[in-house]
C-alpha cells in the first residue's frame, strides 16, 4: 500500500487518487472528496489539522508536503508585564479548547495583549487578519514592541512575510491561495467580519491548526455569526462592557439629547417625510424585513412617484444629519468638554467633512492618507488636537486610549456600531470617566433609530 502524499493546492489540500487507499478511505472520506478534474482527492485547507491528526492517532503513515510553517519561540521584550486575571483566564480557556476558539472582550480590555500571550504559547508562524489598514499599522506596532521583532505586512500594496505577519481581510482573500500553508496560527481580529461571503475564504483556504477569533461584538444582522464556530472555533470566553466597567474599563455615562429642528427645518422635514411615507403606505412596504429596502429601491425607480419618494427620503435624512440646532448643541458640548479628548461620529463621510469644514477640525475617513491619519492620531494622543471627526473608520479597533468623550451626531440603527463607538472611549485611564452623548432630532425618525441601536446591555444603565 503506497504512502499517501498530502499537498497544498490553491487553498485546498490534495492527495493523488493513486495514493488513496483503505486507510484514507476509512479516516478521511468525511472531509475529502474525489475531484475528477484532476484525479485527486481534495479537501478545504481548513481541514488540514483534522486530517493529519486522524491519521497520526491511528498510526497511519503519510507524507506531509503541506506544512510550510515553523515552530517559533517568541520572547516578551518586557518580561515584567503581568496579564490581567481575565486575560489569563481567557487564554486558558482558549488553550483548553485545543487552541481553536473565539474570545469576546469589550474594546479596551486588552485583546491585542491577549493575542500576544496566545502567540507566545502557540509558538507557530502567525498570520493576523484585520479589517482596516489602520488596524494593520496598529498591530504591527504592538508586535514589534512586544517581541522586538520585525512584523510582516500584507495590504496597502505591500507584501512582506515574516514569522508574525499582519494582513487585511481584503488581501487575505486574494493571497490565501498562495500563503495558506505558511502559517500555523491564524488570528482574526474583529472576527465578526470573517463570515462574510468573500472574507470567509481567508479561513477556509488556510491550513492553520490553531485559530483565535477576537471581537467585542460577534453578532451579525444576517445571523452568520454561527459560521465562526466552523471557521475558527466556539466562543470559549466572554465578558461584556458592564461586567468590566469601573474595574478594567472606565466608568461611563451615556446621554441621549433630543434637539428640536428649527421651524423652517421642521416644516421641510414634515413635507418630505410625508411624500416618502405616503409612498410607503400606498405600496404596502414593510421595513421589518431585510428585503423590503430593496423592494423600495426598485419601486422608486419604476415610477415618477417613486423617484419623488426616494428624493424626499434622502432630503429628510439630510435635514436631520446636520440640523442647525444639532450643530449648535455640538458646539456647546465641545465647549463644555474642551479640556477632554473628543471623538465626533457621523453617519457618512459627507457629514464628517461638513463638520470638519465648519468647525475646522481634523476628519478621518477612508480617503485620509495613511501618513496624515497617523499624524492626526498622534496629535490627538498627545493632546495637540482635542477633537477628531470620523464616520466609520474609527468605529472599530483603532486604539485612541485618550478619548473620553464621544459625540454621536448621526449613525445607523446598528447595535454593533453603537457598542463599538462606545468602546472607543472606554479604555481604562487614570481617573478617567467616559461620557457618550447621542444627539437626535426631536420628534423625528431618529428617535426610533436610536431606540434600535441602544438595545444592548451596555446602554441599560
Amino acid at each position, binding site marked *: 500500500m503506497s504512502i499517501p502524499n498530502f499537498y497544498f*493546492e*490553491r*487553498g*485546498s489540500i490534495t492527495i493523488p487518487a493513486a495514493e488513496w487507499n483503505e486507510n484514507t478511505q476509512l479516516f478521511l472520506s468525511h472531509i475529502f*472528496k474525489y*475531484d*475528477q*478534474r*484532476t*484525479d485527486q482527492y*481534495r479537501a*478545504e485547507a481548513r481541514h488540514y489539522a483534522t486530517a493529519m491528526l486522524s491519521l497520526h492517532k491511528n498510526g497511519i503513515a503519510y507524507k506531509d508536503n503541506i506544512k510550510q510553517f515553523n515552530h517559533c519561540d517568541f520572547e516578551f521584550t518586557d518580561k515584567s508585564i503581568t496579564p490581567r486575571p481575565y486575560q489569563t483566564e481567557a487564554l486558558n480557556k482558549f488553550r483548553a479548547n485545543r487552541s481553536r476558539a473565539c474570545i469576546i472582550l469589550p474594546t479596551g480590555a486588552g485583546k491585542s495583549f491577549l493575542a500576544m500571550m496566545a502567540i507566545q504559547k502557540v509558538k507557530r508562524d502567525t498570520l493576523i487578519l484585520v479589517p482596516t489598514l489602520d488596524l494593520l499599522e496598529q498591530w504591527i506596532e504592538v508586535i514589534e514592541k512586544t517581541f522586538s521583532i520585525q512584523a510582516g505586512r500584507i495590504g496597502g500594496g505591500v507584501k512582506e512575510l515574516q514569522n508574525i505577519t499582519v494582513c487585511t481581510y481584503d488581501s487575505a*482573500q486574494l493571497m490565501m*491561495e498562495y500563503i495558506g500553508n505558511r502559517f500555523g496560527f491564524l488570528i482574526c481580529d474583529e472576527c465578526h467580519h470573517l463570515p462574510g*461571503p*468573500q472574507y470567509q*475564504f481567508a479561513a*477556509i*483556504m488556510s491550513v492553520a491548526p490553531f485559530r483565535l477569533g477576537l471581537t467585542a461584538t460577534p453578532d451579525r444582522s444576517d445571523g452568520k455569526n454561527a459560521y465562526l464556530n466552523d471557521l475558527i472555533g466556539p466562543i470559549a470566553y466572554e465578558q461584556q462592557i458592564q461586567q468590566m466597567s469601573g474595574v478594567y474599563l472606565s466608568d461611563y455615562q451615556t446621554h441621549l439629547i433630543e434637539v428640536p429642528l428649527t421651524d423652517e427645518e421642521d416644516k421641510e422635514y414634515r413635507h418630505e417625510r410625508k411624500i416618502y411615507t405616503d409612498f410607503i403606505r400606498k405600496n404596502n412596504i414593510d421595513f421589518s424585513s431585510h428585503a423590503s429596502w430593496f423592494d423600495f429601491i426598485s419601486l422608486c*425607480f*419604476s415610477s415618477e412617484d417613486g*423617484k419623488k419618494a426616494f*428624493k424626499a427620503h434622502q432630503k429628510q435624512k439630510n435635514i436631520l444629519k446636520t440640523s442647525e440646532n444639532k*450643530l*449648535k448643541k455640538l*458646539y*456647546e458640548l*465641545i*465647549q463644555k468638554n*474642551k*479640556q477632554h479628548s473628543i471623538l465626533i461620529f457621523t453617519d457618512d463621510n459627507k457629514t464628517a*467633512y461638513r463638520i*470638519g*469644514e*465648519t*468647525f*475646522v*477640525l*481634523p*476628519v478621518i475617513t477612508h*480617503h485620509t*492618507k495613511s501618513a*496624515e491619519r497617523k*499624524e492626526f492620531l498622534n*496629535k490627538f494622543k498627545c493632546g*495637540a*488636537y*482635542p*477633537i477628531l471627526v470620523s464616520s466609520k473608520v474609527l468605529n472599530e479597533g483603532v486604539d485612541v486610549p485618550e478619548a473620553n468623550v464621544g459625540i454621536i451626531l448621526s449613525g445607523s440603527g446598528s447595535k454593533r456600531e453603537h457598542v463599538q463607538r462606545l468602546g472607543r472611549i472606554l479604555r481604562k485611564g487614570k481617573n478617567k470617566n467616559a461620557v457618550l452623548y447621542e444627539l437626535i432630532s426631536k420628534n423625528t425618525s431618529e428617535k426610533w433609530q436610536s431606540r434600535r441601536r441602544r438595545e444592548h446591555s451596555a446602554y441599560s444603565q
Partner: protein
Amino acid sequence: MLKKVHLRYKIQSNHIIPFYLQLNKWRELSQAILDTYTSCIGKKYCELEEALSKYVNNTESIAKVSKGLIHIIEKKIEFEPINSEKYEINRKNCFLKSAESIRSNENYDYESFLNISQNNKNSESTLYGDLKENQIILSTPSWTCDDLIHRYNLSLVQGILIFANDVTLSIHPESAQKIRSLLRYLSFMGLLFEVVKNHSSEVLLKISGPLNAFSSSLKYRSKIANIIGILPQLGSYTLNAKISIEQKKGILFIDDKKKLKSHYKPFFEYTPEEIKSFIQKVDSSLKKVLCFRSYPVFPIIEVKKWYIPDYCWVYNEMQIELLIFQKYQKNMLLNTYEKVVSLKNKTLVFFIDRSLKIDLPDAAHIHKIYFKDIPSSQKFIQFIKKDILNKQSP
C-alpha cells in the same frame, strides 16, 4: 466588470438573457455621457457629478444603463496632479489654531466661534480641497460611443458570469497554439478544467476553481468571469454557464455570434519568431510529401489524460506529432512523456532543449532530438527524410 446593481437581464424559460446595448438604440446616450465627461475636463469632479445627475436620475432603464456606462468610464479618468502636501500643511496649521481657539474661548458664542474658526482657514483654498470631489479632471478616455457600448456589453456579461456555478466552454480551435494559450491562461489564473469532449472540430472544457469541488464556493468566480475577455480572441466559441443570482437560477449562453468585442490585450497572437521560422522552413521543405495540419487533434489517451502536440503532419495516413520542450519545461516534458510512452501506434517527435538533460527511457515510437536554444529546422527535416520517409517509402 459591472456591479450587481448595474446589471440588466431577464430570466426567460430558464435562460438568463442579458440586455445588451444595441448600437443604434444606445449610441445617443453613450455619446452624451462621453461628451459630458469631455466637457468637464478642467472642471472639478463634483461639477461632473452634477452634470451627470440628469442621466443617473432618469427613468429606470436610462438610469441603470447610465450608471453602468459611468462605472466603466470612471476608472479611466485622470486628474490634475495635486499638491497634497500643500493641503496637509495648511490643514495642520489650521487645526492647531482651531484647537487653540477652542481651548481659549471662555463664553458660549456659537457665531463668533464659527467666525474665528473660518478665519483660521487659509482663504485661498478649501480645507479638504484635495478630496476627489474637489479635484480637477485632466483627461477622460478617448473612446467612441461604439467603443463604450462594446465595453459595456462585455462588462455586463462578466457581471452576470460572476454568479456562475458551472461553466462549460466549447471552442472550435484554429490552431494548437490557441488551445495551449487558453489552457496556460486558465492554469495561470488558478482555474481547473476538464476536457469533456475532444474532436478535431470542437473541444469542450468544463471550467471551475479548486474549491468548486465543494458547494457554494464563490472564490474563483471573478477569475472565471474574466475568461469572457479573452474568448472573442478565440474565434469560434460557445459558453454555457449555470447562474444563481438573486435567488433565481438560469443558464447564460454566449457565443461568437453575439459579436462581443473585447478590449483585452491580444492573448493568443504571440508566437516566437524562431518557432514561426522553424515551422515555415519545415513546411516549405516537406510540403510535397507531408500534409501539414495546423490544428492537430487534441489527443486524449485516457479519460483524464490529454496532451497537445505543437504541430502535426500526415504522411501516408501516418500521423507525425511534434512536441517542443524549451529549457523551462522540464515538468511538462516528464508529464507528457509519461502519458505518451504507451501510445505505440503514433509517431512522436520530442524536440528537447539540451539543457534539460533528462534521461528518458527509450520507446520505439518516440524520437528524441536535442537542440541548443533554438529548435533547428534542419535537424528536424533531416530526421524526417532519413528516419521517416526513407523507412516508410515503398
